[in-house]
């Protein structure tokens, strides 16, 4: 073990990798701060640039970008009351009132410190929890793994869709699209329509960029965006208005740790995500506060709690990815795509086959948390300018990046056409209230699910009762059915309350 850690450290702790992590945080903070862009879009656009780089450098940069974007969202939330990313919406509740009091600097710095503490906590949990979970997962057979993926898909179906039914439809469509190309076991052509380009299936990156980036531009065009114009910053005479004092930080530490635990829990569970985590963090801070009446009027704990929680999602969100091969959130799904492009198949075998790379990545993640203390500082200073970049100037550049990004990985023009096609599909899906996120995650998990399902059926001689007679498989099947029933009941209850 120690030898593995030493090799991992020697591979990971290099200047080049430090630069990668720092660059990711910078780009993530920058793009996250601009309303209309988000971390997932940023990661999707950056993946093509990384394909010739070492896996450690590339993945450290992409995860850094994820973390940076989660923090970056708080910059526009605090300065403009316009969250740069959805997970920063809770931060705006108290961050913007602080700005109006002339304490924008204080709010942004508290958000930064809480983000860093949340991220360190979550990464430490990732390091500690991943090896035992992966070891446990190694004992699973095809039947257990097939049912585990089914459970993950059912949970993920709730991500982004208007109703559970539409989420399940999106998930099933993703699995159907995953069957395009050569059969994973018999190599028989399926839905290729005689095209060589489709033999390897639909290009993941092209589909991802189309579904997540191009479609988002079309949706924002339809909704008609209102350009963000930062108001002149209110100046305060208080010398402490732009910094966080030690008593203030100490007063928030309890909240930050509780939110970090909540955020990590949400991150480790597939489908829960950072938006829920941020609001849960905010809510627990308000309920446990001695002065709940101050929340919504510029309470520092109201900034610290959601920021610690939404950043704690990132590291913990990698736990199911690294150990089980199941992405817990959309950004994790995009990073899973990066793992695959770099020849690392996420799942329990990852820790057996590439322990140095994985432990090296863990080290870089913790290190990148400390970079977060320094790198976003210039962005805070340039905050007003950054958050006001007009989208009319931004979107043509993003669309050009989409085209070149889709082309760049495989140098294949067919992928560009695929990207445009899925851009339109993603736009229509959002319009019909289906979930591109659920479709994408199902598309990634589909081939694995198929292989395990067929292997299990081969072992049982075609008898599907194997999924009920194996205790763990039966448990995951029951959990899947339970998740569906629970969501139906929850939706009925919320409709009645409404």
């Amino acid at each position: 073990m120690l030898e593995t850690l030493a090799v991992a450290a020697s591979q990971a702790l290099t200047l080049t990798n430090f630069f990668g992590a720092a660059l990711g945080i910078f780009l993530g903070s920058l793009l996250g701060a601009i309303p209309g862009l988000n971390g997932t879009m940023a990661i999707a656009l950056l993946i093509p640039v990384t394909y010739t780089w070492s896996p450690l450098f590339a993945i450290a940069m992409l995860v850094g970008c994820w973390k940076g974007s989660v923090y970056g969202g708080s910059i526009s939330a605090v300065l403009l009351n316009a969250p740069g990313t959805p997970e920063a919406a809770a931060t705006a509740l108290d961050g913007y009132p602080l700005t109006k009091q002339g304490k924008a600097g204080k709010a942004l710095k508290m958000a930064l410190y809480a983000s860093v503490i949340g991220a360190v906590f979550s990464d430490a949990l990732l390091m500690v929890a991943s090896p035992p979970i992966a070891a446990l997962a190694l004992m699973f057979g095809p039947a257990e793994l097939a049912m585990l993926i089914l459970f993950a898909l059912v949970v993920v179906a709730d991500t982004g869709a208007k109703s559970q039914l539409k989420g399940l439809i999106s998930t099933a469509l993703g699995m159907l699209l995953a069957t395009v190309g050569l059969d994973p076991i018999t190599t028989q052509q399926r839905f290729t329509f005689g095209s060589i380009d489709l033999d390897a299936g639909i290009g993941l990156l092209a589909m991802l960029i189309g579904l997540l980036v191009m479609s988002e531009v079309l949706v924002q065009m339809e909704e008609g965006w209102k350009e963000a114009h930062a108001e002149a910053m209110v100046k305060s005479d208080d010398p402490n208005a732009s910094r966080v004092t030690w008593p203030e930080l100490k007063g928030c530490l309890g909240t930050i740790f509780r939110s970090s635990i909540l955020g990590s829990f949400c991150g480790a569970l597939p489908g829960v995500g950072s938006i829920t985590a941020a609001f849960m963090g905010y809510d627990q801070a308000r309920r446990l506060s001695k002065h709940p009446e101050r929340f919504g009027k510029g309470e520092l704990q109201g900034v610290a709690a959601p920021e610690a929680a939404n950043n704690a999602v990132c590291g913990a969100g990698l736990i199911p990815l690294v150990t089980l091969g199941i992405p817990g959130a959309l950004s994790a799904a995009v990073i899973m795509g990066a793992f695959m492009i770099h020849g690392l198949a996420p799942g329990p075998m990852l820790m057996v086959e590439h322990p140095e790379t994985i432990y090296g990545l863990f080290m870089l993640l913790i290190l990148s948390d400390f970079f977060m203390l320094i790198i976003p500082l210039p962005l805070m200073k340039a905050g007003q300018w950054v958050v006001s970049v007009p989208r009319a100037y931004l979107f043509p550049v993003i669309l050009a990046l989409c085209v070149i990004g889709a082309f760049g990985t495989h140098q294949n023009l067919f992928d560009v056409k695929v990207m445009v096609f899925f851009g339109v599909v993603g736009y229509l899906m959002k319009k019909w209230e289906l979930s591109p996120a659920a479709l994408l995650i199902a598309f990634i998990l589909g081939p694995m699910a198929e292989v395990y399902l067929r292997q299990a059926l081969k072992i049982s001689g075609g008898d599907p009762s194997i999924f009920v007679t194996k205790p763990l498989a039966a448990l995951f099947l029951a959990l899947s059915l339970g998740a569906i029933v629970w969501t139906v009941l929850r939706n009925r209850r919320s409709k009645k309350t409404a």
Partner: protein
Amino acid sequence: MIQNRMDFKLGIGLAVFCIFLLVYLIPKHVGPLNEADALMPTLVTGFVLLLSLLLAVQAIRRPGDKQHGAESHSGTKGSRWYTIALVVVIMSAYAWLLDITGFVLTSLGAMVALFLVFGVKRWLPILAISLGTLGGLYLCFDIMLGAPLPVGTLVETFLE
């Protein structure tokens, strides 16, 4: 009376697509439904068919959410539809022309067209941002990553 027209149309459309898959596409482009290759596509299509019919039935009984449902989309302004359609046409042309006119010419044309569609009227920022982006992309992909961007058959012929 159908309560939620958008969901009803979606459900029926998906159901028809699934039947087409089960009756024609899977047998023709995968194999007989009872073979191992066709197991997953058949299972998943059957599941989508079931869910689509459920969606259609639900749409007959339950009205859509007034704020987020079909009604909200009917308010989309005609000019925005036109702009979205224009962007899709430009992007499609961009994808198809890359092979013929190459990265530089196609990207420059597409970016200028997109800027105009997005309402940017000043030529200096249009050209500066377009050329800057293209230069950056060329530097990044062609020179730094060694991943040549398409030159285009037409440009190649012209250069020869």
